[in-house]
């Protein structure tokens, strides 16, 4: 009987420690690059300009300058 209680206590202790480890790692991931990607991935971006090359930026500037008249 005592043996059974001890084994159960060990298992419970291991589960608690496991939960602690996973929550610890998850907390760290939320503060890093993962958080940045999460913000960016919130909404579809296909309607936005793809600012990769210099020409992409020149085009975006050209388009926006039209609104200054």
């Amino acid at each position, binding site marked *: 009987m005592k043996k059974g209680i001890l084994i159960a206590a060990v298992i419970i202790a291991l589960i608690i420690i496991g939960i602690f480890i996973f929550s610890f790692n998850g907390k760290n991931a939320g503060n890093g690059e993962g958080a940045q990607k999460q913000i960016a991935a919130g909404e579809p971006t*296909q309607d*936005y300009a*793809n600012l990769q090359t210099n020409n992409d930026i020149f085009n975006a500037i050209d388009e926006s300058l039209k609104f200054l008249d």
Partner: protein
Amino acid sequence: MKKGAVLISAFISLLLIFPIFVYAAGSSTIPPQPTPTPTISDKAMEKKDCESVTMRKERIKCRLQNKVEEDGNIDYDVRVPEACKTLRNPTACIALYKNVQSSQCYNLEGRDKDKCFKETAGIRSNFSGLIPEERAQKAREYLVFLLYEFEERIEDDNKKGLISDDSAAEIIELITQIKEDILSGKNRAEIMPKFNELKQKIRAVRS
């Protein structure tokens, strides 16, 4: 009874050993790197105060040579952005720079970057949803963010040794002039000649 004692000791051992793994998961120790002793020329560069340089182009060149751009961590309360210095209302201009800095748009790429710029300027995916009075003001803010992107690219190329300090300073000075014109309310016709000049200069150094 003996078995019970073994199990208790095993349980205690596990409790003692596991926190070590938890601690190891949360921290890593980097072996200390030997810090190089600064040479006399390094010390002289550290002491160089670029902000006291009177001519803007020379001031920009000084920052490039002394690598004081701080990778987007500039304290705009201490160092007022060049394009804001000559404006009648530099406070609003500084706030704009702080806003885009805190949005961390410059850490993003492609469409995510554009989305971030537009959201920071208060634009949705395009300008059509804005009333005409708002449209010009939002476009000006968005244009400043796009031009700053060029500034960052030129600084990066300069750091990599792809663009000379003189060329980089010349282009950044021209970008600053365009940003000043945009922020001071000039219209498209007044800005276009400088923008075309910028296109030519950037294409000449970054193909």
